[in-house]
């Protein structure tokens, strides 16, 4: 049962990746692209967690945690670049 649920979840978030890619390419605004990248990262984290369940190992959680953190920082940096130019003025 879990297997099927997992596959369903994989499919959902996998679709999420493709959707975010589309948005990232299509834009049209910088905000859209940043949003798409941010969402992609979150989808990726979800997939990573699902993969952890699939493999039955907790070894990928640090990666998820780290990605959550750097994903946030990148998004803010991209936004600040558009907003201010200098990200750490």
């Amino acid at each position, binding site marked *: 049962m879990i297997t099927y649920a997992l596959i369903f979840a994989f499919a959902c978030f996998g679709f999420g990746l493709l959707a975010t890619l589309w948005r990232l390419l299509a834009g049209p605004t910088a905000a859209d692209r940043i949003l798409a990248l941010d969402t992609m990262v979150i989808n990726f984290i979800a997939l990573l967690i699902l*993969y952890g369940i699939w493999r039955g190992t907790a*070894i990928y959680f640090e990666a998820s945690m780290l990605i959550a*953190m*750097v994903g946030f920082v990148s998004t*803010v940096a991209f936004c*600040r670049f558009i907003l201010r130019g200098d990200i750490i003025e």
Partner: protein
Amino acid sequence: MVSGSGLLPVMVLLPFIGALVPGLMIRAGRNACATFTAVPTVLALVFLGVMAPGVLDGGTVTAKIDWLPALGLNANFMLDGLGLLFAGMILGMGLLITLYARFYLSGDDPMGQFYTYLLLFQGAMLGIVVSDNILLLLVFWELTSLSSFLLIGYWKHLPEGRQGARMALTVTGAGGLAMIAGMLILGNIAGSYDLSVILEHREAIQASEYYLPALILILLGAFTKSAQFPFHFWLPHAMAAPTPVSAYLHSATMVKAGIFLMARMWPVLAGTEEWFYIVSTVGLITMVIGALIALFKDDLKALLAFSTVSHLGLLTMLLGLGSKMAAVVAVFHILNHLTFKAALFMSAGIVDHETHTRDIKRLGGLASLMPVTALIAVVAALSMAGIPPLNGFMSKEMMLEEVAHTHWWGGEWPIIILATLGALLSVAYSFRFIGHTFFGPVRDDYPHHPHDPPVGMLLAPGFLAVLVVLIGLAPMTFAAPIVEAAGLAVTGSEPHVHLKLWHGVTPALFMSMVAVGGGAVLLWLHRPLDRIWLSTPRPEAKVMFDALMRRVVLGSRFITEVAHNGAISRYLAIFTVATILLGYAAFQGGGMPAPTRGLLPVPPLVGVGFVLLMVATAATVTMHRSRFRALILTSVVGLMVSAGFVYLSAPDLALTQISVDTVTVMLMLLALHFLPKETPRESPIGLHIRDGAIAIAAGVAVASLAYAFLLRDIDTISGYHLANSYKGGGGNNVVNVILVDFRGYDTYGEIIVLGIAGLTLYALMEALLNGPASRRLRNWTFPPDRSRDRHPLMMVVATRVMMPIAALVGVYIFLRGHNLPGGGFVAGLVISIALLMQYMASGFAWAQDRKRFEYHSMIGWGVVVAGLTGAGAWLAGQPFLTSAFGYFRIWPFEEFELATAALFDLGVFLTVLGAVMLMLYSLSRLARYAGETVNVDPMDYDPSRREVADSEQKDAR
């Protein structure tokens, strides 16, 4: 073998050591300088005198010193008759020139330099003539080119001097290089570079298939040096040198080096058809052409220069004839030419010195004004013309005699006519030299009123003129011994020379008479002939040479600027194409074993990741002009690569890749702040296609390479690492144990790279702020539509909570790294990112003011801690970076592990943190220089201040 072999190398060395003297002595005055310059020459002459008797008796002095035995280049010297003749000429003339130059050079000329160059040249010449190793000979040969370059260009303020020097060096240098090849071949045939060995291998050499190439290459050296046609043109231009130089180099010594070489090699190279036709033909042509040009030269020195060319041609021809007698005549004429030509040069120098002109058309009638000079010149010139009873007559007669018996290009007549013509022209220009300079009416328009120079200046030419007469009158006394000894050295058999003025009625006598008579007629007809000559178009060697040189320079420049055009994109394209082609060529040379692995299955999600990766990669390319977009797209690429690492069992890689990417993106954003935001469209479509083709080829190449090995298994050394990671390294995470232990040295290097990067960025930032870039920064304008909130409240508040948590995560990742994915590097990046979060929230400068650690010293400590941890192993007698670990228990805590590897990892951590922060610092300094202000408060506006302000106002009321 005769005694005195120890003297020989010392004799060669003397001038070189002596070359130091003038520089030291010049402060003591010109006379002292000249005197002490003469000392080494005199000493060398004395040495030579000591060795001379033995050599004149047919002996040879040898000395052997090992120098570079691996090559067969040894400082082996040999003094035989030929060497003795030349050494005597070089040293004797050297002494005379030293004397003459003392008076010739003016007070403005740097005399010390002159004597230094002179002695260097003398030493080099001396080396050539006593070398018993052809490689050693080459060394001295090239040295003469160099030192003569300095001498010719001595008057560097004269453009002719500079050009002449360069031309001489170019031509003789080129010949010298050809000769190197020739000598190497010769040595290769003979099996040794020792001359004495080579001289014993005549048959082997002449039978070798490499004989002709060797001969041509060596002759190129000799012909260029001795100004043989068609290389004769440099010699007249070298006349821009001071006259002592011309007298020394271009009459007595350097130009004779080529003649010497031909004489030296005569025993092994001469006697073949090739030798005969090449050498004698070149000699004859040179002799006639040189004499013809000499006749129409108005510059005294140019006239003498071309006469020298002509006489060198004569000598070459004689050596080329291949008969022993001709060779002996050549030797005799070398001596004679030296005496009269040097005297003539000196006389010309005196005339120049006194009248301030060398133009024969502005001279005449000097005999009465400077009688002594005139006497010397007349004697020498008559000798040159071959008028009895002077020495020139004798050797000319003997030459004509040899020629008369020679069968050349199908008969005797061609050579007889040409040789006679040469002699005839020789007579004409000799007569013209004295006739138009010293005789005729005294003029009143000399640039400077002449009279005989001081005695010092007359001594040297006078002495030579006396020799001219003495040899002419008593050849058996003054010339025969040395000519015999030298002839023996050249021909290998006792020549039994009988030098006498009267040979009876021979063909030579008739030829001689024709020459003298014809010469006189020519001189009588000179004026009309001169007009014809001047109106005849003829190739001007200097013009051609200059044009050639200019073409070479322009051609070189063209090649250089086409190849190295400063376009790195083309360099890289070439690099890539070359790599692909060479890689493919290498691949073709070997086979491939059969695959041993199947393909792993591809789950659909991996397919999705693949699509993302490829699309993002492709989009990075197609959208690269919008730099920001491209940057976002590369983030996707990075994310997908990390995903791949996760999927393919490399969590450590994923962690590292993703954190490094983040920091890299930050740096790029910081830089992009200043850089243009768009990449202009500037390369033509063809370039895109070319680059696209190269890129695709490279992609296919790399993909195929990877695919090839991915299907084939192999045993690797990492089994050991897996087996011993825990036992020997104390960690479960094998990757981390490899990093901090098995290959900790790599990691040590890697943190040093980071540390250097930090330093470099800092140094560059400082340099930019101190250079012109600072002006650009100072005038920086920011877009007016920037957002007005620099440090939004929400971000600041969120950071206050998240930053400590992120720091905690950093500590966690650091500590667990040894056993699970993580480690000092990732931890350092995590902490950096946490700090970066803070910097983004409240600004770098604000946060920087509150930092606890100096980033510089953090890098320093990191590198030092890692280094000291490694060096700590020395205390235990272990090699650098040997790790130690143990499990400890302290109540009330459970067992824990302590490992030196963790300390090493701490060094890594500190370096990474320090380097990243220093980089960010450097970039943010630039921004502040560009006018960003530093905020006082952590956030743009704290609304609670409004409340406080309100309440304060209330209180105030």
